[in-house]
């Protein structure tokens, strides 16, 4: 951004950020509850360390404080789009595994999926405000030769994967709150993107 932000854009950004922070906060609380229910109902050990599950966006980041506002938004958006797909998959697997027996868990999963979708949309709004084009979603274009579909997982592997997904989502929800707070800070007059801090 070469030019300084207009006051109305700054106001809209701050407004979107505060709403985003509230959304992320609520989402995190629901994911944590879902995680507890998931661990219990899937008969998993809560302390099981799930090795990095393939395809799950990791919230862990180095030099977080040095990221630009745009970087934060893009990384968040990519993550939540991935979670949208992963949660939809989990919901499908859930229905196959348990049918009607565990409607509560299914409902909770669906509720979180809805919040993830809403948050992804919210991030797109913020990116539009930053005058950045919103990147297209991978897999939207059917003609593209994407990677082959992953081999079908065993039931246990599905459960472990689900644990990994929810754990990372909970981390992302905390990270998103922090990212949005950085974004909400007024950008310096030089026009540098918000969130660009001094190197430690």
């Amino acid at each position, binding site marked *: 951004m070469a030019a300084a932000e207009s006051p109305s854009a700054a106001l809209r950004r701050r407004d979107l950020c505060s709403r985003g922070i509230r959304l992320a906060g609520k989402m995190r609380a629901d994911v944590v509850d879902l995680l507890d229910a998931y661990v219990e109902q899937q008969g998993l050990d809560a302390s099981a360390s799930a090795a990095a599950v393939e395809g799950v966006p990791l*919230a862990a980041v180095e030099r977080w404080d040095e990221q630009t506002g745009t970087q934060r938004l893009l990384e968040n958006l990519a993550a939540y789009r991935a979670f949208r797909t992963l949660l939809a998959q989990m919901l499908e697997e859930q229905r196959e595994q348990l049918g009607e027996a565990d409607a509560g868990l299914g409902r909770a999963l669906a509720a979180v999926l809805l919040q993830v979708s809403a948050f992804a949309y919210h991030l797109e709004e913020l990116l539009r405000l930053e005058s950045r084009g919103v990147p297209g979603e991978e897999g939207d274009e059917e003609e593209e030769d994407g990677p082959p579909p992953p081999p079908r997982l065993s039931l246990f592997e599905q459960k472990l994967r689900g644990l990994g997904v929810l754990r990372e989502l909970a*981390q992302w929800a905390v990270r998103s*709150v*922090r990212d949005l*707070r950085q974004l909400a*800070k007024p950008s310096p007059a030089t026009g540098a993107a918000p969130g660009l801090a001094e190197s430690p």
Partner: protein
Amino acid sequence: ESHTQYERVGADVTMKCGSMDWDAAVTWTANGTDIDESHLNGSYLVLKNVDLSQSGQYSCYEGSSWHLKYQTNLRVGMPPKEPVLMCRSNNYPKGFYCSWHLPTPTYIPNSFNISVIHGTKDMVCEKDAVPKNRCHIRYLQLFSTVKYKVTLTVTNPLGKNFTTLTFDEFAIVKPDPPESVVAKPVPNNPRRLEVSWQNPSSWPDPESFPLKFFLRYRPLILDQWQHVELSDGTSHTITDAYAGKEYIIQVAAKDNDIGTWSDWSVAVHATPWTEEPKHLTTEAQITETTSASTSSFMAPPTTKICDKGAVVGSGAMAVCWTAGLVVAAYSVLFI
């Protein structure tokens, strides 16, 4: 030659007088005092079931020449028990520190070695100069689900022991208590107390990582605390204080999103504002003052004569009506 020898409490210790033969005539001293022959087996010094008080400088002298043949510094102690280790992040997101101590003393020098692993990565915990048993580490990554594993090994000449802590980034976040807690009465409000405080100075970035607060207060005469949780701001007005009662107030802090509550701050005491008793000259006092020629009415400096809003007139001629009454009463006396 002189050296140091470490022995366990309760051990049996045999000391040889250097290269002297067993049947050589020698004298042993402990811290300069001769040791009784009953402790000798030939020229060997035998100490059975040693205790801490037997630590000291032991010297062996050749019988006739009093030539020093051997000297040792005996240190009686114990191998270390499992150390107590604690790790905490009071300066999130910069890093965390670990501190440790032994549950019981060993009475001999110990050395500590700490290792920190994050996943497969070894991290260096830099030892603090002060306090000694503490080291700190900078976070290289944030928002990681991978746990940290900290192993502390303590070693001394008599043995070694260790302990391990495993935790994730969020779990150990615990700020220091809020600082500069101040509680003040609110003028003309007998049930209010204004409390303010500051973020702990160790918390590096309260703007990006805001803290929320927990206030607790009670009158000194009661045991039950009142609690208020505050999600922002560093001040709060208590509005339900018991009039005239001294209160004790404390504040705690927590990161808005992760970790645990700090310890309670230093306690402050405050009493709500109370109306001061009016030291007005009453009718009875006026009638008592019969020889009034030299007497004059002087209000005690701290006494409030006027209530707010009871002032009549303005500027230099402003007089409160109660004082006016008193003056009028005196005037009547002198007429």
